[in-house]
């Protein structure tokens, strides 16, 4: 995997972790927009 691919994967995983923690804190009742 090249640097660009790894960067994309880091963005992908980072966003998912961050948003799911926020969603959990808001009882999964957060509007995603």
């Amino acid at each position, binding site marked *: 995997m090249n640097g*660009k*691919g790894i*960067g*994309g*994967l880091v*963005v*992908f*995983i*980072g*966003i*998912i972790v961050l*948003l*799911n923690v*926020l*969603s*959990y*804190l*808001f*009882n*999964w*009742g*957060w*509007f*995603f*927009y």
Partner: protein
Amino acid sequence: MVFLLIVAPAAESGDVSAPAWAGDTEAWANRAFAVSALIAAVMRCWHAGAGEFWLPAVIGVAAINGLVAVLFFARRPVVSLGAPWQLASCLPSMIGSGLALRLAPGLTSWPYWAHGLFAAGALLTLVALAWLGRSFGVMPALRQTVQAGPYALVRHPAYLGELIMTLACFLAGPGWLAASAWVLLVPGVAWRIWAEETLLSADPHYQAYQQQVRSRLIPGVW
């Protein structure tokens, strides 16, 4: 008056070309947003208490997040993205709406009219997001101007829907914490609209749309 709708033709506005930085990172970010919205939709239903599944604050939120997931997968590439302060403008309203639902009383204790109000807001939001289609975005960014459906009535119908839903959360209580969330949310949404329009009004198509549809949020008021 019949508004001329839809979107500027692709050759003139949205689909022209994405900036050089877009591409892989934008695509991965879109996938991550989509997966997260989908997880939130499923978990909202999963965590619903007995008899709560069909309440608007459960099935409505899940439907919105499910639709948002689809739109994240399908949306157009960005033509121009806002400055950091403009991008940050979505945060207060997003946090405010999360808090409003978090701080609302248990759903089974809501009066019927509060469920009805929430359902109206959720329905308006779903219709607005569906009309926005592939131009959907969370942070201020120019994709393609949509002027059809609810966007012929006000320029930000999805935010109006959000305010109606959170108002239902507040009134179902009401408690001072929920009221604080509402107080945070209203100026947050106003700031978000202002930041978005600062960016979008650089596009001549959006300028024409602003002349055509004068109200931002509430018809005839603001």
